Structure formats: C-alpha cells, structure tokens
C-alpha cells in the first residue's frame, strides 16, 4: 500500500487535490495536495470510504460522485464546504468525472478539488460578513470570549465592547450579530465619534420633512434602518450629554422621535456599543451618564490589546501575508525569524490594525520571498529595538525566543506569573520554556 507508483508521481505533481474511487466509494488513489487539504495521509486514505476522508457537507445526501455515477456526466466547479486539516470550515471547489478502462467500461470515478478559502476570506472582507470563526486567536482570554459569544448573541441584550483602537471591536460586533437570531438582516454601523452632534442625532433618529431648512422630505434614521436587526454604536464614549439622554430613552423605553416628529416610533433594535475609552472612569468624572452606562453595560466584553496576546502575532502575520499575496498578486512566502522576533518584541499601540499596516508596508519594500527586518518600519525594527540590540548574536529561533522571554521577564521584575499573564500564556507553559531554554532567574535576595 505504501508503494509509490508512476501514477502517484503524476498525481502528486498536480496542485489540485485529486482522488479516485471504485464502485464501492472506496478511495483507490490520493495525491499529495489532497493530503494537505484534508489532513489525511495517503496511507490512511486508501481503501476508506471517500465521505470519511473528504468530510464535506454534500457527502450525505447530495454526493457529487454519486451524481456523476448516476448520470455519467462530469460535474465542474461545484463549491462545497469541508472540515480541513486545521479543523476549520473550508470552501473547496470540486469537479468529478467517470473513469473508464480501454473498453469504455466504468471502473470508478475521479474527484479533483481546490481550496478556495482565500477567495472566500477576501469575499467576506468585501461583504463584511464575519463570523466568530474569522477571529484569529489562540489566546486564552480570547477563547474565554469565544465561549460566551453564542450565549451573548442569543440573548439579544445590549452589549458593551471595550478595547483599544484596532483590537477588532467591529469584528466582534459583526460576529455577535451573525450568530444572533437577527443575522438575516444587515447590521447598521454608526461611528459616533466621526460626526458632529447635530448630524449624529439626525443620522440616528432620522427627520421629518420641514424639521429644518433643507429637510425637503422624510429621512429614516439608522435606528429605523436597523429595525429587527442590530445597530453597532462605535465610539459611544464620544457622544454628547444631550444625545446620551436620547439614547437612554431608546434603551429604557424602546422608543424615539425623529427630528420634527410629534409621534414616537418603536425601536425593535439590538444595540451593541463599543468604545476605546474607560467609560466607568468617564462616569466618575461626570462625562458620561451613569444611568446610560448601566443600561449599555449589561454584557461587557473586554478585548485584550495585541501586546497582551503576543502568541497570536505569528498567526496574524501568516494571515496577513496570505491575504496581501492574493490581493497584490505577489509570491512572498513568509517572514524571517529575525523579522518575526522584531514584531514579537514590539508593543503595537495601534494593535492589529497597526500590525496589518506593517505587513502591508513590508509588501511594498520586499522584493524577495521572505519579509526581513529591513522591510519593517523603524519603530518596530529600528535603533533601540530587539533587532538592533540583540539580533547580531541570534542565529536560531531558539536564541530569539530566549532573548524575548528574558526581556519580558526582566520587564516584569522576573515575576514569572506576571510575565505569563502579560504574554498571554499559561504559567506552566512559561515555566516549561524557561526550563527548556535554560534561562536563569536571578535570586530575589541578590537582586
């Protein structure tokens, strides 16, 4: 079974996944690309039922191969979803055809398939139809958020998302909406910080003809547009006290009046608010209404900044490289260990948005296959950074990991628990790393 045949060599040279089946739906050949996409080694796949290997949404009930066997006609570019090697939903495009021997008798069928995940991701970016599966993270604090997300989405309660600029508040809001029973209607996004107060008021609540000089006819507000859907009020901390009072009324009584109207309108709208400010502190300073704060703070999600989930940086870098390769039609394969060490050592005041910009910038400068420290901007890889101070002696990823952990430990006064917390890893992971890298922790009595 392990013997590689000439046919296997030919099939392995094809970049699309290819497998063949006999009349009993058992796999008779399986190429390398198929191994990569499905995560099933050829040796395990041969002889298995194709549905157990491909794990697609059409296998039970709408099988493409069964259709081809029944009609004798090939199928082309049918998009289906599988569970891929990473345990994620992945869209693939499949084509099927019959296999015949020299006498024209059917001896089986062949299925070719192509991973279209990247195209799908770009489509989602354009359509903004994000689900929580699109949030890239392996951080334990993010996992805790993922765990409550379905319940939050289901509850229809008001949600307050707090997090620094660029941490993905809108992505979370969209994910909550797309998990909620209101997902079939588009969410309405309003950036409260981007508009002057009077404009924001008419945008949110709409106006009636004649309400002011240029109001020639009725205009529905965003609350009206978000009827039976979700409204996302970004930068809620920037709203003026007068508008805060009107928003409070919407939250309390579920009604509002468009400008110039004498009649109240009911608002069947789910509200998700977000801010990068400390609203509680604003309440204490008298800048934000306490009653409104408690109305919107029914369920609060605190998004950690990127510097507190640094283990996600390699995943995010990989994601952005793939996305920009596709968008800009470039063939950059990855990032060097030195450049990654620079990215890991940086603090990202602009969070994930800043990381994305850094990778986009490196794509402009990078003429080779790998992103190098010289392609990164100065604050990340300039004088005084990890790259500048230590990379000359660092030849392996292990050296860089040791330097990175030593820096983090030193910064936290050699407190391992605090360091683990800052790095967003479990303390036992840090202890294991310290041991395996042979790092020396100074004795507190000496330091």
């Amino acid at each position, binding site marked *: 079974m392990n013997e590689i045949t000439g046919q296997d060599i030919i099939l392995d040279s094809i970049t699309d996944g290819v497998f063949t089946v006999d009349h009993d739906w058992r796999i008779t050949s399986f190429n390398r690309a198929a191994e990569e996409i499905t*995560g099933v080694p050829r040796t395990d796949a041969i002889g298995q039922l194709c549905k*157990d*290997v491909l794990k697609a949404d059409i296998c039970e009930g709408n099988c493409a191969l069964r259709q081809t066997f029944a009609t004798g006609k090939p199928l082309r570019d049918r998009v289906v979803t599988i569970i891929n090697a990473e*345990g994620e*939903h992945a869209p693939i495009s499949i084509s099927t055809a019959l296999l015949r021997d020299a006498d024209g008798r059917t001896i089986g069928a062949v299925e070719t398939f192509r991973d279209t995940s990247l195209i799908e991701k770009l489509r989602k970016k354009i359509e903004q139809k994000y689900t929580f599966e699109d949030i890239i993270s392996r951080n334990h604090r993010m996992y805790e958020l993922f765990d409550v997300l379905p319940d939050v*989405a289901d509850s229809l309660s008001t949600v307050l998302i707090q997090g620094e600029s660029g941490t993905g508040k809108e992505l979370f809001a969209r994910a909550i909406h797309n*998990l909620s029973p209101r997902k079939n209607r588009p969410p309405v996004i309003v950036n409260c910080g981007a508009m002057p107060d009077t404009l924001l008021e008419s945008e949110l609540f709409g106006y009636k003809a004649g309400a002011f000089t240029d109001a020639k006819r009725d205009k529905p507000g965003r609350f009206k547009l978000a009827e039976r859907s979700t409204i996302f009020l970004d930068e809620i901390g920037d709203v003026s006290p007068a508008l805060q009072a009107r928003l409070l009324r919407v939250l309390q009584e579920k009604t509002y009046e468009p400008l110039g109207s004498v009649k109240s309108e009911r608002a069947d709208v789910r509200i998700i608010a977000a801010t990068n400010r400390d609203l509680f502190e604003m309440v204490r300073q008298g800048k934000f209404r306490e009653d409104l704060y408690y109305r919107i703070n029914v369920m609060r999600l605190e998004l950690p900044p990127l510097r507190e989930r640094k283990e996600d940086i390699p995943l995010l870098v990989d994601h952005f490289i793939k996305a920009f390769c596709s968008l800009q039609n470039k063939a950059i394969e990855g990032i060097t260990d030195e450049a990654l060490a620079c990215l890991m050592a940086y603090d990202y005041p602009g969070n994930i948005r800043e990381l994305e910009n850094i990778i986009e910038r490196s794509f402009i400068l990078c003429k080779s296959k790998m992103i190098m420290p010289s392609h990164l901007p100065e604050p990340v890889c300039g004088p005084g950074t990890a790259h500048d101070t230590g990379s000359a002696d660092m030849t392996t990823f292990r050296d860089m990991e040791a330097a990175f952990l030593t820096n983090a430990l030193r910064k936290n006064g050699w407190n391992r628990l605090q360091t683990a917390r800052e790095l967003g890893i479990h303390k036992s992971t840090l202890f294991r790393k310290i041991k395996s890298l042979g790092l020396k922790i100074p004795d507190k009595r000496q330091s």
Partner: protein
Amino acid sequence: MKLAMPVWNDSLSTVLDFADCLLIVDYESGTIHGRSVVDLAGTTMAERVARLRELGIRVLLCGAVSRPLDRMIRAAGIEIIPFLRGRADDVLDAYLSGHLLEPGFMLPGCPRGYGPGRGMGRRKRGDFSGPGRNKKGWNI
C-alpha cells in the same frame, strides 16, 4: 442520562457541523431507556449547541467536528467524543461497554493538534470510552 449522536441513515453522521438528524438516547448504568430523533437541518452552530443544552445532553458521540463547534460544545459543559464512525448502534454499544477505542470506530485523519490524536496516545485502551469516564474531555 442523555447521550446524543448525529446520524445519517443508520450510521453516525460523518460531520457534526453538517448533520441534519440527531439521535437522542436516554440511558442509565449502561441500560437504554428510550430513543428519540431531533431535526437539526438548517440550524447554525450556536443553535445546535443551544438545542443540545435544551435537550439536557451530557455526552455527544460524533464524527468530525470543526474546532469552533467543538469549543462551543465543551464550553456548554457537554462531553464530546469526536472523530468516530460506524453504524450508530455499534458505536452506542461500544460506548456503553467501554470499547470505543477499537480502530474501526475512528475516522481517518484528525485535525492537527486536537481531537483524539493527542489524548489517545497517552491513554490506555478503554480508558475513557465508558459512561461516567473521561470527565475532563479530550485535550485541545
């Protein structure tokens, strides 16, 4: 106690995320007291998890499952034993008798770094497959 299995015809459905039908088994001390079938067609991941919770499911035996759905099920406090295959009755008997680790019940290929792959290598055969065992679930 209630156990659930996504089924297709008389077999365990290959992928939980795409399964249309859920077999619910009420059992106690290895004895089955009742069975029923629930329709899952057209439901989202969150709705599937909510349904499992409403039904009071404690254990879920299933085929392949995506990482996000797996996490949501675990977060709901349901023990999940994924990457199984076979006739539904055979899988159920194997679970109740503690023989679920027979090679014939395992789907080929398990997503990297999760599912039975990591946990199983360190466990003895039959260690976790009976009712009331494997309280911690599989490693992720």
